[in-house]
């Protein structure tokens, strides 16, 4: 007789069980799951309004069983501002990629953060425009080849990759800001802790919360999922250091 099965890995209730459209090795799925686990654990599913952005992650709403609205490219923080001001009793978060947030949406993210909108922003930085086929993003690493910098990004021509978590951390309305990765079990646990704190920060009405995920895009990096994951540790983390940047959830000053 077989031993009783032990459940070690349960899909969060708020995550919809359906085939993924993400490529093999893409870490959007992991980031979605972490957001879903936190929404479940904090009991927020039936009061959450998600604001989807433009790019691969526009389909966030296909995977999360919550109310959702689609924002134009880069405008998710403005749309979320409207949602939250109209319904301050609801949990409102945006989920945006680096092309969306760090390029076309720079004004909207900076001012939503500076106003201290009571929203949570999940920012997924994979150093490339994914859905449109791998063009250069503001976060593309020096030397990284993309379809619009085929010779590799050059600092003199295109500038340096932009460090959003550090920029956001400088703004007055930000109560919690952290950069995380999901390239190891240890980092996934830390990422979840940060996302949880970001949502708690909103639930307590403290202000703006921001979590930057470093994530893979094996398809546009032209790497295997394993090599893409290695690149996170070897290339991305040294330039985009992990860790907390702002935590005023205790009411105190910057850490």
């Amino acid at each position, binding site marked *: 007789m077989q031993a009783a099965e032990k459940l070690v890995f349960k899909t969060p209730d708020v995550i919809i069980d359906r085939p993924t459209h993400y490529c093999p090795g893409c870490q959007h799925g992991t980031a979605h799951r972490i957001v879903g686990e936190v929404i479940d654990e904090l009991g927020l599913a039936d009061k959450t309004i998600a604001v989807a952005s433009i790019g691969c992650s526009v389909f966030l709403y296909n995977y999360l*069983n919550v109310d959702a*609205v*689609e924002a134009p490219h880069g405008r998710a923080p403005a749309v979320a501002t409207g949602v939250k001001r109209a319904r301050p009793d609801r949990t409102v978060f945006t989920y945006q990629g680096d092309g969306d947030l760090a390029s076309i949406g720079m004004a*909207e993210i900076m001012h939503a953060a500076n106003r201290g909108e009571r929203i949570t922003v999940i920012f997924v930085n994979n150093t490339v425009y994914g859905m449109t086929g791998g063009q250069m993003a503001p976060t593309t690493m020096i030397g990284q080849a993309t379809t619009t910098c085929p010779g590799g990004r050059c600092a003199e021509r295109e500038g340096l990759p932009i460090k959003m978590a550090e920029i956001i951390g400088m703004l007055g309305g930000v109560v919690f800001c952290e950069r995380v990765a999901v390239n190891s079990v240890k980092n996934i646990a830390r990422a979840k802790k940060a996302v949880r704190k970001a949502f708690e920060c909103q639930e307590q009405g403290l202000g703006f919360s921001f979590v930057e995920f470093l994530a893979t895009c094996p398809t546009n990096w032209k790497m295997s999922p394993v090599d893409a994951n290695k690149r996170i540790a070897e290339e991305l983390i040294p330039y985009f250091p992990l860790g907390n940047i702002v935590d005023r959830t205790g009411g105190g000053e910057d850490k």
Partner: protein
Amino acid sequence: MAPERVFIKGNEAIAQGALDAGCRCFFGYPITPQNDIPEFLSKALPEAGGEFVQAESEVAAANMLLGAAATGVRCMTSSSSPGMSLKQEAISYMAGSELPAVVVNMNRGGPGLGDIGPAQGDYYQSTRGGGHGDYRLLVLAPATCQEAYDLVIEAFALAFRYRNPVLILGDAILGQMKEPIARRESVTYDDASGGWHLDGNAGRDKRLIKSLFLDEGALAGQNRHLMAKYAAMRAETRWEAFQTEDAELVVCAYGSIGRIAKSTVRKLRARGLKVGLLRPITLYPFPDAPLLALAGQGKRFLTIEHNCGQMVDDVRLAIRTKADSDFFGVMPGELPNPDDLEGPILKSLEG
């Protein structure tokens, strides 16, 4: 109780109308000549329990409007011509996502930075959608402060009836002119019974508000649905006909220019000349039917606009099987008075 009468500017009448219509959220950005609207609401709306946000740009203001509209509350934004160009992105998304909201454009001179004086150069932008894709806004063009106040109140009801953005198209004359208006009693509305707005999925399936339709046939279906809705909006067509019955020449003009032309028509009538005025109040849907009926009676037409000729296209389309329309344009950058319109009207009347 007799309605309260207040002496206010057209911009303030629009803001007061929004407040009395139960507007809960306003998202603004400074631009002349509409600044009285956000200034008025920055004080009055929070006092009434609503939210006022001065956005970082017109782009952001319009997208905040999109977000608030998705929750089913009454919300509004206002701007003037250059700012309206920036709002078109969100307006297209709102039309595609079928979100109700009121957008105000106090038209100034263009193109580009133009000037800060009145003009009607945004007629095409207003009536052809304005942004990308096939869509229409319901466009209301008040000519007086009272009409501005009344039409803003009506605009909210129309926005929710059709789940579509409604545009109030005024200009710097209307915005800066002061007149007495009769206020209505302020009402709190509950438009959230339609079963489409977002408020968290407690006790029901999740809802999704979007304009992306990738599945085979889905976008075609959405476009057909929108076209059917715009056809249904024809029921809202409004116009003012002034002394058109026995007129030999019908002047067609809207907004402030419609009001100025009315003065000229009145003056010429006093001299026994058979002229009348048809003033479209809805620019979309356009009053095709009354124009065609007048054309069927053998009347001649003169369209007068504060631009280089835009609405005249719609007048000609309306009457094309029976008649044509002359055109007289007041240049953006110039301010007409009733006497300036006398010559062009007499010229068309003489044929």
